[in-house]
């Protein structure tokens, strides 16, 4: 099954996302911020990255930008979890290389549907 790296500094969100994805059979690893994620993403190549945007130490958009620069992650789908419905964040994300976004709050089914879209 596909592997996903779930990145969020909020433990409750992270746990929820991980639980949801694992229940659907995905292989999920967690990271607590951009720095942690960047390190983990280089220890193994994930099939997909799902990341929160607002995080300390390194935010989600910077993370995506830096991952895109790595040869293994050129085409890997990367999704932002963003609460901001404003267009600027999304555009900023796209410019950094994000594949797409999921707007918070989302329910587990939405998350799974989106991932299914991106991973099959």
């Amino acid at each position, binding site marked *: 099954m596909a592997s996903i790296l779930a990145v969020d500094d*909020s433990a*409750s969100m992270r746990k*929820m996302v991980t639980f949801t994805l694992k229940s659907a059979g995905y292989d999920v690893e967690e990271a607590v911020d951009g720095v942690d994620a960047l390190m983990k993403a280089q220890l193994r190549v994930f099939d997909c990255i799902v990341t929160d945007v607002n995080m300390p130490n390194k935010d989600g958009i910077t993370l995506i930008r830096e991952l895109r620069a790595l040869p293994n992650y050129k085409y890997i789908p990367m999704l932002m979890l963003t609460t901001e419905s404003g267009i600027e964040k999304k555009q900023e994300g796209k410019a950094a290389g994000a*594949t*797409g976004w999921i707007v918070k709050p*989302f329910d587990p089914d939405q998350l799974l549907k989106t991932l299914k879209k991106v991973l099959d």
Partner: protein
Amino acid sequence: MSIDMSQFHQVFFEECFEGLEAMESGLLDLNTGDIDSEVINTIFRGAHSIKGGSGTFGFSAVADFTHIMETLLDQMRDGRRPVTQPAVDVLLGSVDCLRAMLTAIQSDDPIDSVAVVVYQSALEIELNGSVKESSPSISQEITGAVEEEEVNEEIYNEDEAAEQGWRIAFSPYLDLLKTGNDPVRLFRELAELGEYTASVNTRDIPDFDDIDPEECNLSWTLKLLSQCTIEEINEIFSWVEGDCELDIQALIKKEAKSIPPSKQIKSEPVIESLVSSPAPTDISLVNIQQPTNATNTPRVDAGGELLIDRRSGGSSSIRVDTAKIDALINIVGEVVITQSMLGLVGENFSMDQLAQLKRGLSQLERHTRDMQQSVMNIRMLPINFVFSRFPRLVHDISAKLNKKIDLKLVGESTEVDKAVVELINDPLVHLIRNSLDHGIEMPEDRIAAGKPEIGTIELKAYHRGGHIVIEIIDDGRGLDKNKLISKAIEKGLINENSILNDKQAFELIFMPGFSTAESVTDISGRGVGMDVVRKNIQALGGNIEILSELGQGTTISIHLPLTLAIIDGQSVAVGEETYIVPLVSIIESVNITEDMLNKVAGKGETFRLRNQYIPIIRMHEIFNVQPKNKIRANEGVIVVVERQGVLCGLFVDELLGPHQVVVKSLEANYRRVEGVSGATILGDGSVALILDVPGLVRLSNRQLSTNTSL
């Protein structure tokens, strides 16, 4: 699939409370005038996180409330809005309100909706200068306790048509693939909407030599037969908007009416009337139920004796640094190794393996000590858990009193057992309130006395010799020894001819029924006197002392054992029995002979220690133990202990050495015994009693009075 979200709620609530604390201390820092964008950013992130989480977990009232805070803070961090005192005050109040909301939700209690509306309006006024119509979800909250999601209905008006569908011209730009997007995926999604046929345009593919596989040179024209709306198609292409050219035309021109989503308003906002009137600018009028931490308030029985439940009160969970757990796991690993080594030695033991056995046992002893240390460490929390609420407390109360007071925290990372953290909170609050109310003078008085206008209270914590010391140091008016004495005489607590030194005079404060305040103010005089504070602290195995200089200030010093479960003790022999004297009470020990003791008629025995005569308590007598050596009954050891500023000597047979002992409750299965604070299990499996010095003194006094009355 339905996933039970409630399993994440607890973590979410904990995160929120932590976030609120961070926001609060950030806001208090903002107060001091300098605008630090990093601080504002932290506060903003706090609100943002809570908003996001609460939305995800379905707490829409919280999400909506926090959203306004977030908007305000966002403007502040961008520089679009100045940081003003009123704005900070509103935000501080909103933090309280949020805290109360979350506490209520967490314990399944109704939310104080009036407070929510007031603060929400205050935030909106701050934001817009006026109050908007309340959002529907808040009105739902108020009319019903059950939280419901917003209902988002889209009503489509579908007309009949023959061939309904769309023609989609899709030309991705070269870089579309570089965001991980894939046209094939998009087409798959379109397939879910209906049937499509696609024709691909290859005109733009460069020559073979020039092809870059990372670029997308294809474009397509698709015909989608579907009753879907244009919005649904746009939705599918939403991620690649800007990375492509997209042209969608209806196959057959018709009017596709779509009514924009309406939000169901379940009830007429009852709060309109409240909201339309200008919100009170003095937010402090609103009484928000501050959630009190579930502290273990010590019970006092009819006789005024303190009943303390040694089992730690408060929450029964703890967050631990994983490093501490890893350290413990390592040690346990070592124990396993040592244990199997000893097992091997024991299997076919012969005396020539004695050295190995000894080595193994001493290793095991080391590991056990390390494990004990490690486990105790896990229960340790930085005292900041207690200290962190004081900046806010001092800020609020000093404002109320119109005094200028600066609170300094020193050593807030000092670690202390979780049980201590929970039980020290109330006494500290009481003491700091005293300092605020009676200690620090009004600004005018300070200036007149040649002191800086702003008073300072220093809240300090540090480790010293196996104990934690917490000090409250203020530069206020100090204690007036004479005033204390006359007050005590007035209350009949002491004889009018009593002569007391400074230290003894300060001790008067701890007598039950004593209060120097002319009137019991609402701040500090809640009927809980210093005697109860002292009892609390002693029940924890600690001590409290006061030092003061008139006109200069007062220092209150609290000594506590690092952990309640384990204490340092001195093992002593009394006859055949072994008792443990808590090290925290011991001043020194002296070997004595017959001639060093003096009998004083009606007052028992005393012992001369340098320039003082201290009373003796014969442990054999008060505990009814046969002395080992009847002939030399006056030879032994005096253990000099201190109790509330007064010294006395425990007469025992010999010292058996210092011991770290695990405290076990005697009361759990048995009864409270005067002079005994608990029990411990010694290495040989037998039980040794841990002595309670104040209790011993009481026993001794009682015996003396029965003896003299005979």
